[in-house]
């Protein structure tokens, strides 16, 4: 189903000395001043353009790849891609040696140039990142792949640029799995869907015959775990998105739900509800051994592992109301960490390990926020009528979640959409999907 991709990365010209460049982007503070960057269209010769037109029905592949990069950079909120109409230099010449005066004239601080060649049924894409003010090359790389992967090349180029300029790994060559929704609120039809991080290449993984909820990626491979109401038995399932093969997780005599993978991808942690009580269990995917982690008459759900696998944060109403707790992976040392006003749910541990993102309900409003793993430093990022279920980008810099609208007096006007926001609280934006959408989960980087 999903093609395996092997990219060969060749260093074509690492500039003489890897000196610290002037241009860099600070991502730790709110970015009110995105870096002006010029993304020159990648040049491609006539033969290449003709062949790609024939093979993939794509006009001007170099322009298209540059557009993917530009859109990624813009959506990150950290960069301000400049208007192409102001570019003075031709793409092929700029790629060889930019006339830096021309680019600084339009206030570009960084410049991206590149070249596409179609050869031996493969696409070879080169790009260079230039520091305009220092007038030097910062990075030069080339990738070779099958032509149908052209969008991914755009994402990988963005990851390289982001990493070079911010000092942190990117999150662009990733996918989002989510629940696609349609139909009236009282009879919603839900399907599993997957798309690239930028909203392209949407594919549906189920047909909508049964209710499906809360898909989550395995951080180490292309497996997904989710809740399905197949045959009216709500159970946690495991799905291989490459082969389409799926199976029920474990043999429980009641509803299993709220699944997530352990950071090593070898276990599923989830809730099991029986006789009105939900507790947290794990199942080892290799030996199928099931372990009970919590044993309490309250509702224990929404478990999420710390990235080192040693701790679990979860949601419990053992205090009388929904709050966030942290415990050791064996279920001992349970400690409540949320003490602010209101109810707290859906804790999810940051891939960097230092923060827990959550949903908070207070005085009729829903918030997405973060706190340190001991509960200190609570910071609310966004307030709305209804929003929940944050999922971290693999670099721990961005959260994606879903938001539902309030209906009018006749119960009309309902919609559910994906939104994302920076950890800084800036750059809140809707993630465009083909249909209504909820329950997003962000994959790891596909290429590392």
């Amino acid at each position, binding site marked *: 189903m999903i093609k395996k991709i092997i990219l060969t990365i060749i260093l074509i010209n690492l500039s003489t000395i890897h000196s610290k460049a002037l241009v860099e982007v600070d991502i730790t503070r709110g970015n009110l001043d995105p870096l002006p960057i010029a993304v020159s269209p990648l040049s491609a010769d006539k033969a290449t353009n003709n062949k790609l037109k024939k093979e993939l029905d794509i006009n001007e592949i170099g322009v298209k790849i540059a557009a993917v990069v530009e859109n990624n950079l813009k959506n990150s909120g950290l960069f301000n891609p400049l208007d192409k109409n102001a570019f003075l230099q031709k793409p092929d010449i700029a790629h060889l040696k930019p006339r830096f005066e021309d680019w600084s004239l339009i206030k570009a601080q960084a410049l991206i140039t590149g070249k596409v060649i179609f050869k031996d049924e493969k696409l070879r894409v080169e790009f260079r990142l230039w520091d305009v003010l220092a007038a030097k090359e910062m990075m030069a790389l080339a990738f070779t792949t099958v032509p149908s992967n052209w969008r991914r090349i755009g994402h990988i180029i963005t990851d390289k640029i982001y990493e070079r300029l911010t000092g942190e790994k990117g999150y662009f060559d990733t996918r989002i799995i989510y629940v696609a929704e349609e139909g009236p609120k009282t009879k919603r039809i839900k399907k599993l869907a997957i798309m690239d991080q930028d909203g392209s290449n949407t594919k549906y993984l189920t047909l909508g015959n049964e209710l499906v*909820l*809360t898909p989550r990626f395995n951080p180490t491979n292309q497996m997904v775990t989710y809740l399905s109401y197949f045959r009216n038995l709500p159970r946690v399932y495991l799905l291989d998105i490459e082969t389409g093969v799926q199976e029920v997780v474990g043999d429980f005599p009641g509803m299993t739900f709220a699944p997530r993978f352990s950071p090593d991808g070898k276990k599923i942690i989830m*809730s099991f509800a029986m006789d009105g009580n*939900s507790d947290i269990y794990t199942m080892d995917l290799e030996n199928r051994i099931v372990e009970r982690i919590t044993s309490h008459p309250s509702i224990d759900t929404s478990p999420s592992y710390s990235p080192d696998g040693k701790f679990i944060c979860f949601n419990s109403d053992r205090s009388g109301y929904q709050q966030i707790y942290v415990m050791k992976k064996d279920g001992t040392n349970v400690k409540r960490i949320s003490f602010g006003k209101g109810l707290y*749910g859906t804790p999810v541990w940051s891939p960097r390990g230092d923060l827990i993102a959550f949903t908070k309900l207070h005085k009729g409003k829903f918030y997405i926020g973060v706190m340190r793993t001991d509960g200190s430093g609570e910071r609310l990022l966004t307030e709305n*009528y209804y929003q929940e279920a944050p999922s971290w980008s693999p670099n721990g810099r961005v959260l994606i979640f879903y938001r539902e609208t309030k209906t009018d007096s006749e119960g009309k006007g309902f919609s559910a959409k994906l939104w994302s926001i920076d950890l800084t609280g800036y750059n809140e934006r809707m993630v465009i999907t083909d249909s209504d959408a909820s*329950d997003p989960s962000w994959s790891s980087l596909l290429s590392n």
Partner: protein
Amino acid sequence: MLACLVLSACATKKVQNQMQGDVYTGTDTVEYLASGVPDRVFFATNESVLTTASRDTLRKQAEWLRKNSKINVVLEGHADERGTREYNLALGERRANAAKDYLMTYGISANRISVISYGKERPVDSGSNPLAWSKNRRSVTVKAN
């Protein structure tokens, strides 16, 4: 102007008549398993405690089930939209089990009752207001055969 006031007063009164605390007491959405046997009970926000009215309804259901001993039922537990999805699944399960336990104390065998939670996934009223939410916080008894 006067008409307006009278109308809004009526509307408020109607809502009040349909809710006690924030538990739905109306009959708009209620269906009947048999004459005089309502199919559902309602809950307060975040609660799974059965109200006096709910216990009354469930005793009627138990009596009907005793008379119709070949009928099995599914108890469908639901929550309103003002909670996180996963917690609501657990809450719906807890509500349906509260109803199940009560039916069992009135002599209905556990093997005639199955339970399923839909959390906030299947509202009966698509409104975003306290009355709509009160109708959606429910456990519905459905014939399984």
